[in-house]
C-alpha cells in the first residue's frame, strides 16, 4: 500500500466514523412509554374539557334563569333574590360542595379508572 492509498484509507476511516454513531441506543421501550404518557395526557385533557363544558352549561343555565327572573321586574324587589342574598354563605357552601363532588366524580375518578387502563 503506497502513501496515497494509505492517506485515502485514513480518509475512508474518518468518513466511516463520521457516518456512524456510538453504540448507545434509546431504550427499546421508549416508543411505548412515550405513547402511553401521551395517551394519559390526552385522557386528562379530555376529562378536564368535558368537566369545564358541563360546569359552563350549569353556570350558563343559572345565568339565563337569573336574567329571565330579574329583567322583567328590574325595579321591584324579587323575593327569591332577597332570599338568596340573605343566605349567600349557605349557598356558597352548597355550591362548593356540589363543585367538589362533581369534580371528584367526573374528573378524579374517571381519570383514576382510565389511568389503570394504561
Amino acid at each position: 500500500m503506497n502513501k496515497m492509498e494509505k492517506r485515502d484509507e485514513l480518509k475512508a476511516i474518518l468518513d466511516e466514523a463520521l457516518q456512524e454513531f456510538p453504540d448507545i441506543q434509546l431504550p427499546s421501550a421508549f416508543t411505548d412509554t412515550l405513547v402511553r404518557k401521551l395517551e394519559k395526557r390526552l385522557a386528562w385533557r379530555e376529562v378536564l374539557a368535558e368537566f369545564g363544558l358541563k360546569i359552563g352549561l350549569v353556570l350558563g343555565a343559572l345565568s339565563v334563569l337569573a336574567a329571565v327572573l330579574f329583567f322583567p321586574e328590574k325595579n321591584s324587589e324579587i323575593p327569591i333574590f332577597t332570599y338568596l342574598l340573605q343566605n349567600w354563605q349557605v349557598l356558597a357552601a352548597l355550591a362548593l360542595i356540589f363543585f367538589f363532588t362533581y369534580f371528584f366524580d367526573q374528573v378524579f375518578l374517571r381519570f383514576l379508572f382510565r389511568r389503570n387502563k394504561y
Partner: protein
Amino acid sequence: MDDVTLVARVRDGNTHAFRFLVDKYRNLVWHMVLRMIDRREDAEDLCQDVFFRVFRDIGKFRGDAKLSTWIGSIAYHICIDHLRRNKRDLVTAVEQFTPAMLAKVDIPENIGGMDRTAIKKLVHRVIDAMPYNYRIVITLFHLEGFSYREIEVITGMPEGTIKSYLSRGRQIIHDKMLAQVPEIKAILFETN
C-alpha cells in the same frame, strides 16, 4: 406511510400514527440530543419532550420543509433551551474554542496502526469534546445526511458558518488523529 399522510393522521389525534412517527424519527432525535447534551440521563427525557412538542405543534407544520427537518429543528431548540438553563457560558464556550482544548481528550487504550475500530472510537471522543455547534453540524451533515440548506433551517446558522464548522471540525479530527496515532503520522509523512 408517507409524511403527508402521517402528519394528517397525527393532526387528527391518531396515536397509532404518532407511534409510527416516533419509530421513524427516534434515531434522528436521539442522535441530535445525545450529541448536544453531555448528560446521558437528561437525553431520554429531552427526546420525550421533543416528541410531545411535535404532537402539540403538528398543526403548525406547513409542509414547506421536510418533516425530518422540522422535527430536527424542534430537537435543536429544545436542546439549546436545556443547555441555556444549565450552562450560562454556552455562547462564550463556542467562541473561545480552540483545537488546543482537545488536548485533554483521553485515549482509553493504545491505538496501534490502522485499527479501524480504535480510530473510530478516537474520532467519536474528539467530536464529543468539541463545542455543541461543531457536534451538531457534523452529526446532521455526515450522520443524518442533511444538506447545508436543511441544516440552516434546523439550526438557524448561516450556510457559510455551517461550512466553516464542517471543514474546521474535520480538520481538527484529522489533526487529532495524526497527533494521537503516531503510526498514522509515520505512514502519512514517511519519505518514499
